[in-house]
């Protein structure tokens, strides 16, 4: 059998699972820190939440990269004929 396809599927699952792990922890920390800051200074909630959104988007990008890698492996793999 063509082992490249099997390895690709395993690698795609691997990429998504570990690619979700880091950003999940990081986003949790970011949200927790923002909650802490808003609890201390409720008047600065607007600035904090806007910065939080932009920061979360930045963090999330790494997970999205892993997702795109997984999709490339599954649908646009150059080594699968």
């Amino acid at each position, binding site marked *: 059998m063509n082992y490249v396809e099997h390895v690709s599927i395993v690698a795609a699952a691997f990429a998504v699972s570990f690619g979700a792990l880091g950003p999940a922890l990081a986003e949790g920390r970011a949200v927790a820190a923002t909650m802490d800051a808003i609890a201390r200074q409720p008047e600065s909630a*607007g*600035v904090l939440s*806007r910065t939080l*959104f*932009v920061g979360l*988007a*930045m963090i*999330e*990008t790494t997970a*999205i*990269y892993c*997702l*795109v890698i997984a*999709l*490339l492996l599954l*649908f*646009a793999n150059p080594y699968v004929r």
Partner: protein
Amino acid sequence: MTDSPLTVTTLFHFGPVPITTPVVTTWGLMAVLAIGSALATRRLTLRPGALQTALELLVCGIAEQIRAIIRSDPTPLMPLVGTLFIFLATANLLGLLPGLEPPTAHLETTAALAGIVFVATHVYGVRSLGLKRYLAGFAQPVWIMLPLNIVSEFTRSISLMVRLFGNLMSGVFIGALVLSLAGLFVPIPFMALDILTGLVQAYIFAILAAVFIGAAIGATDRS
């Protein structure tokens, strides 16, 4: 199994040019937004009706967000950033209408939008600082940062493109998967999540465009 999310379906050929589904959707949406805006702003009055109040709320909200980022008059950025937000917010929600799918769930659309932001950043930067001062800004804070600054110009455009595509495409893809697994009411929570993702991604795209342009015109720190 559903189709590959990386390919687009060709609808018809316009001479030698293949016209794909996202192109048709985008042009339809552009027509609806342009004609709708033209009709809605045709009779502006000093005492606004319900529609004008809603539009003013939207425009003022966008202007306030931009002002908070660039800390100066938001008028020069309003045409670009406001249009980006309104277009993306509607385009990302198109998946809720039966038979349509968001054009932003394809890499080509988001690449074009990121390209617009990339070009606009430099145009705004050169226009507000002059070519020499703008180019000198790349060597800030020390000259050894020059290659990193140039690389970051490209990587942040690519991440802008991939972020929007990844979020929207995963929403569409998961929706299709769930629909093929379980029929009637099961996809509804995922569609509700899509509304949230779509609006947040439109907001983030517009905000990041404003942040990039703000950095280029020297209003905020280069990030």
